[in-house]
């Protein structure tokens, strides 16, 4: 019996939660369309069901509260009272109190102690046409006792539709019928009201006779058989199925698909038409079954969004803002586990947007915007991902504020912060411990920052971007979420004889590092090999050694492939033997025999039927001890290589190759960006070569032609060309080189060349290696002389010579 009761109680909790969810949605809708009869009808019915079920379990608090809500609702339903915002707020508070009780019930199976008399009396006062006490601010009804008006102030006047609470009303067990107003029995109603008011004073008094209430309910049912039927239909909709059962079914279907695959070849060997047609039928049915089965895992995003109308309503009311929430693509489906995972991040983003993004009405008026701010939620499928956008037309990001905050929170030095671009400032928002709001409101600043949001999203293989152009035009936050957790893109690499997959969401880039040409090679940092990538040190891990596949360590002449990966604690390089291809993989757990093995996130089955393991970058960082090492000693460049000169004596240059000339460098500050152009894009304009670049035409300069001693050759246009874009008098000029390598730190001190060479300003020493540095000024000058297009344009003075000593 007890078990049975538990089961029913479980169902009650689920049902109650669903009713309350639906009530929230209906309510916000009702506020917009107060005349929608059907909505009021639905809300009333939901509340009535809840009350009935609570009575069945003898949950007194729930029942009384639900009853008070219902009383008010019935007045609204009958048109005796017009709904206003205050009333909605009070009712919503009532719902919140109900929700809190139900949460406790679901945890403890017992109704918590508490006093809801304040909210009940407020509800009843309104229901009876009285003026409610001062607006009730929070759902914590116990704290509201002092606001409670004397119950006598509320006059029991109008008849009440519903029966008084009974210990076990039968309504819970019968199909619900909206209880019609029993207007013919005013006396009884008055008595009922009296009882309620007494209850509101939290005195426990036996409710009015249950038999009377039963009679009322029954009479109503008889009177209105149609309504009874209608509600039966609505109850017939979804069936609840255990998730485990679904997963099992899913596995069975997969097996069935494989069995079908084995069956298919027999058709070709068999001439029996009946057999062929039977197999064909099985084929079609299996396909259909598989598709439907996949659908069961998918749920529309409205499951998460459903809470937002209420959330936005409450927030905006509290903040005195006006916000209109628009939803597009609420039917977009994604895996239910992912749905769970994006719930909190989305709530946080929506809170943030209402709190920080959308301005107060008077500010919006001043900015010549409509008073009502728009908040658009949009979801759609795109390239096998679900894209969710949260767009507002608010103030956008206050970049200067972000900058100040970054300095204040020691995220950047003032000098560094001053140089940050808008995009970099946006990235700053995602750093841990960042919040721009001066006053921490109880809405946003809960200590959960955008960094947590980002972590949650990347954890499920998604990404997040913020666009916020300057000029107070609003913000667009875009989340990209994979359709399902089970499938993710991964890069396959080889270590010794085995293939491994690295999940793409932890992979930053692939670097090929030639130890033979790199003078510094692998450096040693307290026993951990490190390598330098764009001035930043990265610890290295030899995958073969880490996994115990072999002890091979790269020799001085080897070129190594490094997968630069980002784990939760550290960014590091994973040295692999070969980089293979990128594939979508289906992640399968590797089972309990390998528990405690941190290095693998799972395994996948390759096209050839073999199993390949998927690396867990976080786990590897942990099990290799890298995290502990890095945390104990911060990777700081100056600690590593003592022989290197002070940073300020160095300058950053881009290293590139020109065949026959070897490695050359150009200071990074003269470079706008670099590009690879397909040969088709290169057009000849007289003797000059140009490409269209953005909305301008960019001349190409073949660097080789301007350097003394180089072989002059026609540019090889059979393959893509590498181009360094230099801004010359605000005009882009493309410097054609053979190969772009990397960004390096070289001493500022340049050695002059004897004899001086055309096109070169000097040579820098990088370790043992001599690197020639381009003389851009000379090259630009020479170019302008060679191609005098009438418009004498002198190059910007590039003071490279000044560095010569």
């Amino acid at each position: 019996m007890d078990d049975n009761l538990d089961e029913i109680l479980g169902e009650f909790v689920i049902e109650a939660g669903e009713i309350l969810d639906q009530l929230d949605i209906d309510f916000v809708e009702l506020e917009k369309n107060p005349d929608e009869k059907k909505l009021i009808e639905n809300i009333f019915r939901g509340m009535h069901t809840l009350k009935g079920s609570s009575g069945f379990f003898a949950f007194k608090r729930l029942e009384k509260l639900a009853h008070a809500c219902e009383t008010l609702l019935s007045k609204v339903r009958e048109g005796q009272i017009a709904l206003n915002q205050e009333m909605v707020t009070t009712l919503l508070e009532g719902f919140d109190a109900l929700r809190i009780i139900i949460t406790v019930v679901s945890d403890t199976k017992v109704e918590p102690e508490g006093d809801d008399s304040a909210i009940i009396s407020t509800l009843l006062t309104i229901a009876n046409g009285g003026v409610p006490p001062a607006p009730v601010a929070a759902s914590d009804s116990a704290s509201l006792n002092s606001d409670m008006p004397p119950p006598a102030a509320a006059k029991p006047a109008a008849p009440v539709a519903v029966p008084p609470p009974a210990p076990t009303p039968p309504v819970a067990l019968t199909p619900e019928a909206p209880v019609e107003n029993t207007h013919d029995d005013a006396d009884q109603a008055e008595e009922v009201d009296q009882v309620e008011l007494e209850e509101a004073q939290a005195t426990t008094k036996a409710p009015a006779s249950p038999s009377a209430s039963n009679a009322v309910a029954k009479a109503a049912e008889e009177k209105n058989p149609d309504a009874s039927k209608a509600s039966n239909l609505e109850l017939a909709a979804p069936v609840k199925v255990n998730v485990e059962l679904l997963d099992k079914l899913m596995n069975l279907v997969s097996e069935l698909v494989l069995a079908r695959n084995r069956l298919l070849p027999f058709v070709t060997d068999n001439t029996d038409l009946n057999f062929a047609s039977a197999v064909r039928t099985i084929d079609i049915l299996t396909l259909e079954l598989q598709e439907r089965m996949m659908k069961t895992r998918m749920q529309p995003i409205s499951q998460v969004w459903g809470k937002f109308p209420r959330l936005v309503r409450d927030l905006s009311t509290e903040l005195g803002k006006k916000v209109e929430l628009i939803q597009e693509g609420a039917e977009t489906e994604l895996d239910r586990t992912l749905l769970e995972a994006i719930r909190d991040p989305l709530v946080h983003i929506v809170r943030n947007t209402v709190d920080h993004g959308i301005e107060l009405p008077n500010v919006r008026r001043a900015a010549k915007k409509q008073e009502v701010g728009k908040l658009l939620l949009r979801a759609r499928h795109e390239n096998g991902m679900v894209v969710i956008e949260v767009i507002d037309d608010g103030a956008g990001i206050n970049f200067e504020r972000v900058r100040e905050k970054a300095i204040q929170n020691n995220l950047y030095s003032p000098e560094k912060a001053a140089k940050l671009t808008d995009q970099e400032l946006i990235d700053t928002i995602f750093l841990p411990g960042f919040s721009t709001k001066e006053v921490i409101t109880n809405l946003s600043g809960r200590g959960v920052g955008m960094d947590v949001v980002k972590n949650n999203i990347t954890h499920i293989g998604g990404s997040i971007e913020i666009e916020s152009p300057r000029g107070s035009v609003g913000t667009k936050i875009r989340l990209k979420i994979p359709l399902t957790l089970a499938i993710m893109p991964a890069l396959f690499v080889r270590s010794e004889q085995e293939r491994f997959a690295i999940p793409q969401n932890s992979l930053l880039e692939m670097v090929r590092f030639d130890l033979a040409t790199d003078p510094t090679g692998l450096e040693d940092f307290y026993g951990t090999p490190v390598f330098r990538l764009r001035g930043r040190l990265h610890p290295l891990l030899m995958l073969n050694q880490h996994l115990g596949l072999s002890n091979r360590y790269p020799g001085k002449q080897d070129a190594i492939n490094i997968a630069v990966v980002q784990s939760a604690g550290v960014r590091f390089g994973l040295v692999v033997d070969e980089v293979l291809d990128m594939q979508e993989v289906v992640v399968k757990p590797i089972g309990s025999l390998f528990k405690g093995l941190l290095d693998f996130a799972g395994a996948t089955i390759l096209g050839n039927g073999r199993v390949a393991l998927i690396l867990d970058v976080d786990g590897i960082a942990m099990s290799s001890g890298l995290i502990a090492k890095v945390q104990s000693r911060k990777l700081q460049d100056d600690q590593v290589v003592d022989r290197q000169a002070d940073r300020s004596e160095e300058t950053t240059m881009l290293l590139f190759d020109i065949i026959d000339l070897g490695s050359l460098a150009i200071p990074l500050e003269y470079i706008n960006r670099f590009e690879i152009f397909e040969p088709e894009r290169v057009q000849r304009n007289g003797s000059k070569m140009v490409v269209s670049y953005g909305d301008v035409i960019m001349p190409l300069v073949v660097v080789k032609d301007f350097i003394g001693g180089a072989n002059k050759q026609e540019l090889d246009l059979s393959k893509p060309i590498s181009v360094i874009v230099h801004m010359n008098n605000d005009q882009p000029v493309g410097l054609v080189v053979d190969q772009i390598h990397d960004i390096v730190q070289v001493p500022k001190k340049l050695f002059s060349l004897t004899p001086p060479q055309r096109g070169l300003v000097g040579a820098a020493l990088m370790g043992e290696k001599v690197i020639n540095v381009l003389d851009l000024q000379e090259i630009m000058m020479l170019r302008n002389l060679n191609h005098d297009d009438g418009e004498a344009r002198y190059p910007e003075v590039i003071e490279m010579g000044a560095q010569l000593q």
Partner: protein
Amino acid sequence: MTTNHLTLNEGQDYTTFHIGELFFGIPAIDVVELSRNLDVTAVPKGPSYVSGLMNLRGQLVPAVDMHIRLGIENSKSDNKGVSIILSSSGSQVALIVDAVGEILSLNSNFFEPPPNKLTALAKEVVLGVYKLPDRLLLILDPVKIVENTSLETSALT
């Protein structure tokens, strides 16, 4: 569940197999299928007696090398052997053995305690011994085979 079968009753079916010189049996009711030449992908740093993961029609199944598991020397290391796919406590596992014999119907009442000459590892998983006319049949406990043994706990940490 499996042990229940052993404690009750008369005639129960046992799948028999060879590992090295020894002859083993395992309750046939736990055997899902036999399979040969499945590719095994090694799982580095995994337990030493697990030679890796196999793909059994889309399911990942760990393969237990019974030579290592029972501490029996493997004379012919290149031989891939036969995989006995077991369904044990909800998950599947493949036992890689040298050869599979016939299915015997045995009465567990005649099981005797394992002989002392067995390796310590084998003793952990041998339920009992059945005296066949010409040789001894060692009955294995399918659940114990896949439990982490004293042998392995150190390798995982």
